C-alpha cells in the first residue's frame, strides 16, 4: 500500500475513510497516538504540531487524507533506538514544562524550527534577510516558537532547552 498509505513514525498506515478526519484526530483517535495534543482544534495553540517530511505543521488544520505518501513524525517517533532525542532530555533538565500538555507540540515545533533556520528562512526578528544561515539567538527562538502556547508559563525553560540543543549548533 506504498502509494496509498501515510507513513507515520516509519509505519505505513491506511488513511481514514472519512475525509473530514483531521490528521490530529486520526493520530489520536484511530491510531491511539495520544502524544500529539489538541488544545484548540483551530490552529491557534500549536499543541498539535507534528513534522511532515521534516516540516512542522499544526495537525488540527490538516486533513489526514491529504497526507498520503508523506512522512509524518510525531512525538512518539522522535526518540531513537538508543534513548530520547537530546531535545527531550534538555526539556527535562531545563524544566521546560509543568503540566506537559503543550510539551510534545513545543518539542516537535522546535525540531522543525531548527530545520527552517538551517535552511536560512528568515523570521520577523531576523536582521539580515539574505543570510544563508540564521543564528538562533534567544530573540529568534522566542519569535519562531511563538506559535506554541504554554499556559503554565514554562517559557524560559522551553527556550533554554531549545537554545542548549540548537543555538550553538546553528552558529
Amino acid at each position, binding site marked *: 500500500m506504498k502509494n496509498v498509505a501515510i507513513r507515520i513514525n516509519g*509505519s505505513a*498506515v491506511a488513511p481514514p475513510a*472519512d475525509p*473530514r*478526519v483531521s490528521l490530529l*484526530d486520526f493520530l*489520536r*483517535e*484511530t*491510531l*491511539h*497516538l*495520544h*502524544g*500529539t*495534543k*489538541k*488544545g484548540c*482544534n*483551530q490552529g*491557534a*495553540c500549536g*499543541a498539535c504540531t507534528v513534522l511532515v517530511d521534516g516540516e512542522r505543521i499544526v495537525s488540527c488544520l490538516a486533513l489526514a487524507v491529504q497526507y498520503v505518501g508523506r512522512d509524518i513524525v510525531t*512525538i*512518539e517517533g*522522535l*526518540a531513537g533506538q538508543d*534513548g*530520547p532525542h537530546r531535545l*527531550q*532530555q534538555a*526539556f*527535562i*533538565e531545563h*524544566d521546560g*514544562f*509543568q*503540566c*506537559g*500538555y*503543550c*510539551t*510534545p507540540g513545543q*518539542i516537535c515545533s522546535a525540531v522543525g524550527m531548527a530545520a527552517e533556520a538551517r535552511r536560512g528562512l528568515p523570521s520577523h526578528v531576523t536582521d539580515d534577510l539574505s543570510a544563508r544561515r540564521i543564528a538562533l539567538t534567544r*530573540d529568534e*527562538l*522566542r*519569535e519562531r*516558537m*511563538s506559535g*506554541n*502556547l*504554554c*499556559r*503554565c*508559563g*514554562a*517559557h*524560559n525553560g522551553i*527556550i533554554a532547552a531549545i537554545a542548549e540543543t540548537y543555538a550553538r549548533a546553528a552558529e
Partner: protein
Amino acid sequence: MSNVEGSGRPTQHEGAAQQDTSLTRRGVLGIFGAAGAGALVSTFTGPPGVGPVSLVSEAAPEVLVQRGSGWVGAALSRIDGPLKVRGMARFAAEFALDDMVYAALVFSTIAKGRIATLDTGAAEAAPGFVLVMTHRNAPRMQPMVPFGPNEKAAGNDNLPIMQDDRVRWNGQPIAVVLAETQEQADHAASLIRVTYEAEPATTSFAQAKANGTEGAVYFHHEIGDAEAELAAAAVSVDATYRTPYQNHNAIEPHAVTVAWHGDELVVHDASQSVVHNAWSLAHILGIEERQVHVTSPYVGGAFGGKFMGSHQVLAAAAARLAGRPVRLTLSREGVYRMVGGRALTEQRMAIGARRDGRFDAIIHTGTATHTRDSPHPEAFPFVSLSAYATGSLKTDLQWAFLDQVANAAMRAPGEAVGSFALESAVDEVAVALGMDPIELRIRNEPKTDPLNGAEFSSRNVVKAWRDGAERFGWAKRNPIPGAVRKGEWLVGMGCGTASHIYNRENGGAARLTLTSDGTVTVDIATHDAGMGTETAQTQIIAENLALHPDQVEFRLADSAMPGLVAGRGSSQTTTVAATVVEAKKMLVAELLTLIRADSPLAGLTAQQVGPRNAGLAKLDDPTRHETYTAILTRAKRDKVTVEASPDEPTEMNERSMHSYGAMFCEVRVNAVTGETRVSRMLGSMDCGRVINPKTAASQFRGGMIMAMGLALTEHTHYDERTGRIMNPSLAEYHIPVHLDVPEIDVIWTGIPDPHAPMGARGIGELSVTGTAAAIANAIYNATGKRIRELPITLDKLM
C-alpha cells in the same frame, strides 16, 4: 499508571502504531536506561556528602550523622518528565474504551428564557448517530453542590443540569449528541434546530449595578473612620481601577471519559478535585459515593478552572442512557461557554498618607460581577486587609448579578485583581510624596496583622524588597516619568508587593506502605496539574524517611485513595507535607513494635529514634542504626502500612500567615504605537522553605507570566446586549507567547516558616499577585500615563 488501572475496567484499544503505555509513572524511566536515571538526578547538587543512600545496614557512621536525607531543597528534575516529553503521560481524553462513543454539545444562544422548540430529527438521521440527550430525556438528577460548608462539594453552581426547558445563561448546554466518531457527533449536533422564548436578561455591568448590588458580608471591615482620615490626609489618592473578565485557558480543554459497569461509574477526569468529584457525581446521580471512581493522574493545567463541572455530569448521564462509554471533550469554545473565569471588577482604592509617608487611611471597596449561583466571590478587597500598617481601614465588596456563566476561581482569585488596585495606588502615593515606592512600602510595614493584631508567623517582605532592589538594579531607576528614552522606546521600571494567604486543608490523609526491599509507597488523593506535586512530595517523603527519591513512589489523584485535598488555595504542598510528617511518626511507632532484643535499637522509645539513612537510628547516637529492610526482615514482615491524618490546621487561626514577594518589572513602551514590551522581570519571594528550587522557580515564573497577560492582553469580551462571549478562542483571547516573555529572574529569602509543615508556605498563586501592578507602575514610569483599567492595550497608551 498502575494507580488507575482497577480491575473490571474496559480494556484499551491497542492501535497499530501505539507505543506501550502500560507503564507506571516511574516505569518509563527504564526506557531511558542510564540516561533516564541521569535525567532524574543530573542537576541534583544535593546535600554535601550524601550520595545515593546505601541500603545496607553497615553504613559508614559519618553518613549516619546526616539529618534526614537532604532532598528537600534539591533541584530535582520532574519525576514525570520522561513520560511527558515523550507524549506518554495519558490525559483524560486519551483513554480509549471498548464500544466508546463521542459526545458533542449544543449551547444556548440566548441568556435567559425557555426552549420553545427543539428539533432533533435531522440529527437522529445523521450517519453514526447514537443518542441525543436533552431536558426531555435526561435522567432526573440533583444539581451540583457548590464549594461551601459541605467539605466534599466542589461545584461551581447549583443550577439544574438539563432538567427543564429553562435557559439561564448564553452558552448553557441544551443537548448532548452521541455518535460513533467525533466528526459524526459534531455534524449531528450542528443539525439540531432550536427556537427560544427569550426573557429580559441582565447582560451588562451597568444594568446589573442599576438593578442594585448586594454586599458580601464577609469582606466588609472598618477600623476607625477611614473616610474622615482620608479627607484630612496631607496626601491622598482616591481612584477607580477596573479589571476585565478573564479565562483560565489551560491548554488541555476539559475532558472526561466515562464508563458504567453495572451501577459503578469509572471516570477518567481532568480534575483538581478527584474525591470531591466522586462525591459530587454520586450525589447528583443518586448513587453511593463508593460507586464512583474518579482518577486524574495527569491534568493539562487547571488554574482553578477544573473542579466539578456540568460536563462530567452530562457525560455520565449520556453514558447511562446509551449504555456505552462516552468521551466528552469540550471544544475550546465549549470551555468558554461552560466554565466561567475571573469576574469583572470596578474597585475604589483610596490611600491617605502623612508627609512622612505613613498611611492614615486605606479604603478598598467596589463591585464585582457575580452570578446568583457562583460560590466564588472575586474578593479583591481581601488583599488590603493584611498589607500595610494604617490608622484606619475600610473594605467592602458589592456583587452585581448578571445572567451569565457562573464566575469561577482563577489563580489567586480576588488577590490577583485586588493587588493591581492596591499596589498601583501605593505607587501613586509615592509619586505624590516624591518618595521611592519601595521605601514607602517599607515605611508602612506592619508589626502585627493590621486587621486583628495577630502575630505574623514569618514575614520577611522587607528583606525581599532589599534583596530584590539590589539584584534588579532599582537604584538606577529614574523616578521622573517619561525621562528615559531609547529611540522610539520609552523605558520604565515599576514594582509591586505580592502576597497570598497561607492555607492548609483539613482533609489530609495518607496511606504509607514500607516494603522489606526498603521502598515506600505513599497514596494521597491529591493532584498535579503541573505544579510539581509528585516531585516535591517525593522529596518531602525522601527527606522525612531518610530515603533516596528512587525508593519513594508517590501516587495521587485517585478518588479511592485517602485524603480530601483539592488543588486549590495554594494548599496542597502544606496539606500533604503535614500528612507525610504525621505518617512518618506513625511509621516510626509501628516499626518500634517490630524491634527485637537483638536489634541495635532495642529498648528505645519513639522519642529517642528517627529516620536516618534508609532506616531508624537513635537520635543522639546514630551508630545505633538499623535499616528498614533489616527491621522488616528480622520481623519476617513483607511490609508495614500506616494510615495517617494530621492534626487540624489550627496554625493559621492563631497567627497571620502569608507568603510575600517583591515584584520588579522593566518595560519598554513604543512612543509611536503604544506597544508595551516587558523587557525584564524579577520576583523576590518570601515563601518559607522552598522544597524544589527548579519547580518552584518555574511556578513563580508561570504566575508572573499569567499576570503579564492580566496586565497587558487578556480580556474575555461579552456582548453586553446578548450576554454572549465574543472571543471564545485562543486566537482572539491573547495569552502571553514566547516573544512576550523575557527571561525572568526569581530569588527567595529561603527563611523557613516555623509554623508551617516543613517550613514551607504555598507558592502556587503568589506571583500572580503584585505583578500586574508592577507592570502598570513601570508603564507609568516609562510614559507618565497612569492606566487604571486592564488590560493596558495600545489604544490606552497612544
